[in-house]
């Protein structure tokens, strides 16, 4: 196996911007950090509403098989996604959830889980649609997925013209929440 390979799965429902998150992350890693990255997505009727998921692989080496076998980072943004992917996650994976959209099972108590009310924070910024960028900022703070500099560049060059500032603000909001969350999770574990 490629020891540098980072396997990331993001899952939620159609309209949450799951694939856009994956796109920005892949672009940050490949174009702005000069690594290799692949993005593949669930495709078909499900991308018109129901469940939505994407796999992002990042490596300094050439990426062969483009699917996530064992996620290093798993992001779930809906109850369905939690039930489908969250419950089967490997113990050592960085697990990130949308706090107010997911009811965790009882056996999750005491486990290391990074959670953020990303939808509410986005609403407070004025547009629910930037929830994905809040989530991305949070991801960037609590994991090694990509540097926040690269992600910010990727956001600026990917979102619709005129919405750059809002999206970057959303990213920043998530990032700052993430820095506090790391502390909180550490204290909880200790």
């Amino acid at each position, binding site marked *: 196996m*490629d020891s540098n390979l980072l396997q990331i799965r993001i899952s939620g429902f159609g309209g949450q911007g799951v694939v856009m998150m994956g796109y920005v992350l892949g672009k940050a890693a490949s*174009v702005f950090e000069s690594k290799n990255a692949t993005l593949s*997505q669930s495709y078909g009727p499900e991308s018109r509403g129901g469940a939505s998921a994407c796999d992002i692989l990042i490596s300094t080496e050439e990426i*062969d098989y483009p699917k996530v076998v064992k996620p290093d980072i798993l992001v779930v943004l809906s109850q369905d996604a939690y039930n489908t992917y969250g419950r089967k996650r490997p113990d050592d994976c960085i697990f990130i959830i949308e706090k107010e959209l997911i009811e965790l099972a009882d056996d999750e108590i005491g486990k290391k889980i990074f959670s953020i009310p990303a939808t509410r924070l986005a609403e407070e910024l004025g547009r629910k649609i930037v929830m994905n960028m809040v989530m991305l900022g949070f991801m960037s703070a609590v994991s090694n997925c990509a540097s926040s500099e690269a992600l910010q560049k990727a956001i600026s060059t990917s979102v619709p013209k005129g919405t750059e500032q809002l999206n970057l603000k959303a990213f920043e909001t998530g990032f700052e929440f993430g820095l506090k969350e790391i502390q909180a999770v550490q204290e909880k574990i200790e």
Partner: protein
Amino acid sequence: MAKRGPVLTGEHFLLGDFACAEGALASGCRFFAGYPITPSTEVAERMAERLPEVGGIYIQMEDEIASATAILGAAWAGAKSMTATSGPGFSLMMEAFGLAILTETPTVIINVQRAGPSTGLPTMVGQGDMMQVRWGSHGPYEIIALVPESAQECFDLTIKAFNLSERYRVPVFVMTDEEIGHLTEKVVIPPPEKIEIWERKLPTVPPEKFKTYQTNGDLVPPMAHAGSDYRVFFESLTHDERGYPVMKADAHQKLVKRLVDKIVLNRHKIIEYEEKYTNDAEIIVLSYGISARVSKRAVRMARERGLKVGMFRLITAWPFPDERVHELSKFVKGFVVPEINMGQMVKEVQRVATDNCQIQLVPHAGGDIHEPEDILEAIYQVHDGKAPRRGDLLLAM
């Protein structure tokens, strides 16, 4: 949005289907006719968005038959032209491909393969058109088919497809698949001056001396364009060098032989493949497209387990690299051939490897890609001497 030029020099994180479109634009393609069909639709979408920016024409036709004939007409009028399709759309285009072959029309077809037969699994991957592209139109002929394994190659091989089609005046097919077409990856687009473009050979004789298919001893005639000072005659019946119909077997023999020879005799200039670890390999995984990506993971896993396994990736599926595969067959225990169909390119491996070694097909009906473990298991089959040789398959019948 600001107008962009035809070559988007720089590094992009780009969908495979979009990369095919960008390769076409960088090659000088300025005419696209198509009928959207999953999973090729993004090629059409991108062309619809981009062609007007570079002064080209995008036409959404009433169906695939019309799309395929429209790109021939555009080529005859002097344009570099392309269409993209999938599944049933490719079947519908077959007759027009024969017309392109007989009239020696340079054009490019992107086939983003999905799982068939029929409408099958419209949104899911397949590699089941590999023989259809070779034999699907009626009559004896040769075509060129390239298979990208990444978004970067979607860009690079679309350019190569245009170059080959212009040089050999033949339809050239980019046989990608749903998985690669829908994979987003880094694509580096060089500056225009770093992209090699082969242009169509134009007539050098004055118009009154020109004959549509006069080859002057070459295998490929120069091409004059409809609407120019040259009189042209594009005829789907068997024709002489003027382009006039000749209903005779000897004229047919002469014409078809040249159409076949221009590809077969130039195959060494056309064929491209990738080899990895084949120097010391005892077993070689031979594959293409997305299945080659999965195979590379399996080869890596096998090497980690101490097995001497190499990789042979078809970049040109047609013409098939007979000589090299035959050569390798003399030195290896066997080939493992994963493909997302029930066994198509493996038949070429059987043909050229003869009884020299074992050949283990790893079939998949489509709808998903292989898992690397499926291929690893087949590698062990060959390693343990349990895979069949061609003769064994005949005996089993």
